[in-house]
């Protein structure tokens, strides 16, 4: 992203600024990264409820007779496992063993789907899927006209229930409903999120975003609802071990290496599925692992990972001080022999090799 490029505001940027948010450029949008402080916002979501403006995310609508075949061809998961109102986490494998993007696939009906993609990959994804659309599916990019609010935390359904007749508390994880929300029709309410704290993602037209934002804060006032920035979104997702595209997965990492074998179903016959079937069967030479620091230091993206003898065995992809656990945590790729849980690895932090231990995900286990 060049600095000279004009940043797009979301429909709510002026509200974030008025609330005192620190705004940063992200994937071409002007986004709130922090309001009161990352630790406080993080804990707010873990223990109460908070609202993220994630309107920068991309929404593609794929419809028509070829819709199923196109999505089955470009995504790694098995679209046949979806029914109306269900959502699937998936990725777009490329032809060289890597990942174009990770995404959510919503089945609205047998012939209509919504794909939710990362803002930073929107054009790349659009071009990729278009290129492979030999199935005659109708494709529509509604990203610019849609806003997305993630209302996350254990008190989310309690905070929002007065705004809709959809029974929020009984919605199953990875399902959605389309209904009236805060008096606005055709709002998509999705029991998903990127925090591991529970809650909903709410898709709406830009022109309704401000009304819905205010309605959410009014309805959630008794629960102490607060706005949350993207910095806390990142620490929350990392405590769960959710991959972030560009950090933990990219065009050169395979979904099998990344621990995404569970969303990779080669039998469904997607792009490069033969190679993924082979990797599943024969194994891979490096794996994405989660680790906790044993000695003092905070791992960061791109720091080398060494073995006890100082040989480089991998690289850190994400790292932070966990606000919930108050320990330093990270993820990174290491060679397979070093990927076993409880194994000792060493993170190269500046001029020191600092001891860490491979652990199971998630780092944070809900109480």
């Amino acid at each position, binding site marked *: 992203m060049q600095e000279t490029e004009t940043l797009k505001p979301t429909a709510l940027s002026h509200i974030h600024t008025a609330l005192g948010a620190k705004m940063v450029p992200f994937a071409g949008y002007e986004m709130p990264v922090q309001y009161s*402080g990352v630790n406080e916002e993080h804990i707010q979501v873990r223990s109460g409820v908070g609202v993220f403006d994630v309107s920068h995310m991309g929404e593609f609508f794929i419809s028509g007779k070829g819709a199923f075949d196109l999505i089955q061809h470009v995504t790694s998961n098995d679209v046949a496992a979806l029914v109306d109102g269900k959502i699937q986490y998936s990725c777009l494998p490329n032809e060289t063993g890597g990942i174009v993007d990770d995404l959510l696939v919503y089945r609205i009906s047998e012939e209509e789907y919504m794909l939710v993609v990362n803002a930073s990959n929107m054009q790349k994804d659009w071009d990729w899927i278009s290129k492979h659309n030999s199935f005659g599916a109708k494709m529509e990019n509604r990203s610019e006209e849609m806003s997305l609010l993630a209302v996350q935390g254990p008190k989310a359904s309690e905070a929002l229930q007065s705004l809709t007749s959809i029974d929020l508390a009984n919605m199953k994880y990875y399902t959605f409903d389309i209904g009236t929300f805060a008096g606005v029709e055709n709002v998509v309410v999705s029991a998903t999120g990127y925090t591991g704290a529970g809650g909903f993602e709410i898709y709406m037209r830009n022109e309704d975003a401000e009304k819905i934002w205010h309605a959410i804060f009014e309805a959630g006032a008794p629960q102490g609802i607060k706005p949350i920035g993207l*910095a806390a979104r990142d620490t929350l997702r990392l405590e769960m071990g959710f991959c972030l595209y560009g950090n933990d997965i990219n065009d050169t990492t395979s979904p099998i290496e990344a621990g995404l074998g569970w969303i990779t179903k080669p039998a469904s016959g997607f792009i490069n599925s033969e190679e993924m079937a082979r990797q599943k069967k024969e194994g891979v030479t490096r794996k994405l692992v989660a680790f906790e620091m044993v000695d003092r230091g905070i791992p*960061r993206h791109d720091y080398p990972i060494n073995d006890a003898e100082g040989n480089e065995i991998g690289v850190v992809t994400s790292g932070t001080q966990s606000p919930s656990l108050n320990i330093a945590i990270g993820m990174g790729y290491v060679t397979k022999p070093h990927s076993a849980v409880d194994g000792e690895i060493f993170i190269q932090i500046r001029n020191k090799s600092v001891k860490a231990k491979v652990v199971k995900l998630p780092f944070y286990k809900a109480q």
Partner: protein
Amino acid sequence: MNIPADLKYTRDHEWVKLDGDIATIGITDFAQKELGDIVYVEIETEGEELDGEEVFGTVEAVKTVSDLFMPMAGTVVEVNPGLEENPAVVNEDAYGKGWMIKVKVDLNNLGSLLSADEYKELVG
């Protein structure tokens, strides 16, 4: 923005308080706000004689990491022992309990420190 008039400042957003030939050094209120929640301050240069602009330590926030630079040449004679237990004190009291190091300096070789007014201009 809190910029005490009786301190000197650097372009790296550090403050300097001189008491005889001992300079107490920390980061400014502006710097702690930019960094966000500070979770670790690593300073392992106690007893070392360092040049001006040399790195004397590192401050880690949740989202970012930043080097700490010597405002002038000198010997690090003390590191704030309170930072080990509670690095967040830098956020809470950047000019007081959040101080980082004490340096024995050569008063004839203090480099180009900024006044409070000059620093205020720098950070707008």
